[in-house]
């Protein structure tokens, strides 16, 4: 694997008495979609702003494209901020051309690329309209065009699916996947956990300004797997030695294991039986949303208990 596109180590940022970010670290590599997750007010936006040199950090190390983020490197970044907007009283086409030229494109190239993007997002016929006359979804698509038009190597998108209908959500997901396949680095912040599960390779979960969870999605889910297995097959799985509880869910059996019993013990026990036929056996994994809630709420409860 090549070196990280973004590397944050021990990032700290305060605003007066408020500690927005106290200890955040993660690396993001080319060709991956990285999820930046956290509850509201956790410090995600501050982390992104510090990473993009909009704010200066109090402490910590930041490396983007292998070093300090200079003005030239900024043109290699596409950013869709959480609080976004366009010039409402200006027309769509000149607004996007202006933003593209600020990213280093010459006007002719910007116009040429813009025409393609507008057609792909079904906005071409609206290019002469004022931004304020476009629907919220159209404005969102225009924002995504402004983020991608200069073909950035690092794409930072904050809630990219906000305000989009299912068709356009699918289009944006396809585009994000295309960018990943093209070798670009994508950092995505969203509260839509099913989108994270569908798109992201790795995640970091920030809570109260700290990284509390970091790694590959599958590994995290595995680590948070409850002491249970999911079994599908023929026969009665309600009575399995070592299983405290067995319940049937959507055609599969969810077996809760007794303390000290491993999934291997259950598998061996089932394999020894002639009255059942195993078609699928897997460790029960919680959803990313369950993990998010349990980590955030668990941390909150822990702090309350300490207090």
């Amino acid at each position, binding site marked *: 694997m090549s070196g990280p596109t973004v590397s944050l180590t021990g990032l700290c940022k305060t605003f007066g008495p408020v500690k927005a970010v106290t200890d955040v670290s993660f690396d993001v590599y080319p060709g991956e979609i990285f999820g930046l997750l956290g509850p509201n007010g956790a410090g995600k936006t501050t982390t992104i702003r510090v990473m993009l040199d*909009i704010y200066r950090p109090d402490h910590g190390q930041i490396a983007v494209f292998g070093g300090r983020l200079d003005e030239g490197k900024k043109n290699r970044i596409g*950013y869709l901020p959480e609080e976004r*907007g*366009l*010039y409402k009283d200006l027309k769509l086409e*000149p607004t996007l051309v202006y933003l593209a030229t600020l*990213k280093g494109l010459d006007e002719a190239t910007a116009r040429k690329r813009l025409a393609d993007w507008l057609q792909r997002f079904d906005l071409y016929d609206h290019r002469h309209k004022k931004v304020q006359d476009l629907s919220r979804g159209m404005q969102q698509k225009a924002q995504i065009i402004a983020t991608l038009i200069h073909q950035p190597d690092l794409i930072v998108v904050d809630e990219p699916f906000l305000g989009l209908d299912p068709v356009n959500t699918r289009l944006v997901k396809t585009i994000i996947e295309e960018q990943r396949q093209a070798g670009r680095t994508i950092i995505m912040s969203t509260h839509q956990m099913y989108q994270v599960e569908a798109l992201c390779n790795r995640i970091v979960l920030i809570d109260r300004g700290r990284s509390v969870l970091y790694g590959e999605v599958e590994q995290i889910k595995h680590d948070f797997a409850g002491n249970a297995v999911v079994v599908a097959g023929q026969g009665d799985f309600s009575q399995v030695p070592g299983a405290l509880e067995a319940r049937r869910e959507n055609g599969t059996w969810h077996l809760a294991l007794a303390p000290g019993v491993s999934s291997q013990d259950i598998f061996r026990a089932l394999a020894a039986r002639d009255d059942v036929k195993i078609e699928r056996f897997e460790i029960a994994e919680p959803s990313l949303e369950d993990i998010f809630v349990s980590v955030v709420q668990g941390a909150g409860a822990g702090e309350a208990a300490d207090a």
Partner: protein
Amino acid sequence: MRNIGLVLRHEIKTTLEKRSFWLTTFLFPLFIIASTVLPQLLARDTFQEPGLDTLLAAAQPQSAGYVDAAGVIAALPPGFPPELLRAYPDEASAQAALAAGEVGQYYLIPADFVATGDVVLVDSHFSAFTGLDGGTLMEYVLNYNLLGDLALARLLIDPTPSVTMQSIAPATQNSADPDDPFVFAVPFAVMFILFFAITMSAGFMLQSVVKEKENRTAEILLLSVRPRELMLGKVLGLGLVALLQLAIWMGGGWLALNQSGNVATALTDFTLPAGFAIWAVLYFLFGYILYASVLGALGALAPNVREGTQFTFLAILPLLVPIWLNTAFTQAPDGALATALSLFPLTAPTAMVTRLSISHVPLWQPVVSLAGLAGTTYLFVLLSGRFFRADTLLSDASLNWGRIVREVRGVRLHLTA
């Protein structure tokens, strides 16, 4: 530099595309005319002190009567139109003539007039402001009969009938009549144009900054443009727009003066001093940059246009002072007050240019004043640049006195650190 150029071009383009900009540009001259030339025109007609011959020529066609119980009026002065004063033997007949409308008023000259000097005026329509000219005419007739000398009687009414004014001030370029009120319209107009050109274009700066905060484009811009570049691009772009606006106003005014041979005759006689345009442009540019940087800083701190404009009046207050004290410039352009205001950097942009338009200002004064203005502008640009930061441009905190004081203190500490 490229980004500054892009922001500059964007500001010019978006401002020139605004309908409000062109409405203001073309309606503003009408406002200037309404607020400067018209009042002067009215003032000339209303308050200009008339000479005796003017009074005789302009006397109301309706005659006045008199009852001379003292027997003073033996004859009317030579050249006095007899139909203006009609003699009546007694008050009853004068009263009847008044009731019949033969006369509009009549004078009663009592028998003891020579001892008391009292004359009674009876007018059909009482008004505190009517009959004053008629009183002067009666006084002229009485003086003539008492003195028996026409020249002396005229002198008593108008002691300085043929004064030739000769200025002992350093030679001015103006050949126009200094008593002509139109001449005073020029410095008024200059003052208004400078004031509005500076404050309007600086106001565009505030709106431009606050709108980018309001519509949330600031964060996208900050990833491409440094805050200082953003500020500089805006100041320069809107400055060029302001110069265009000024050129339209000045050029339009020049064309109007050349095309109009009636009302503007006096104005065309009014020649501005050599180099005036250069001084005006220099003072305008520095004045604009100074106030644009102040209003730009306000815009960087304000979360929306409404809160930003609440403090605009205070920010432009120094420019208003010369307008409030405009009589100091027309009556004594080289007096202590006008000189002090034209040397003080915050009031100099309007005050000095106004003085330059009406008086021959010693060269050292505009030079020193401009140097002070340039230095102050530089300091204000430095100071305002400190407010153009990511945390202020992305902040939603409301703008109030407490916050302004905290920010200024923070900036001062930063500057001294």
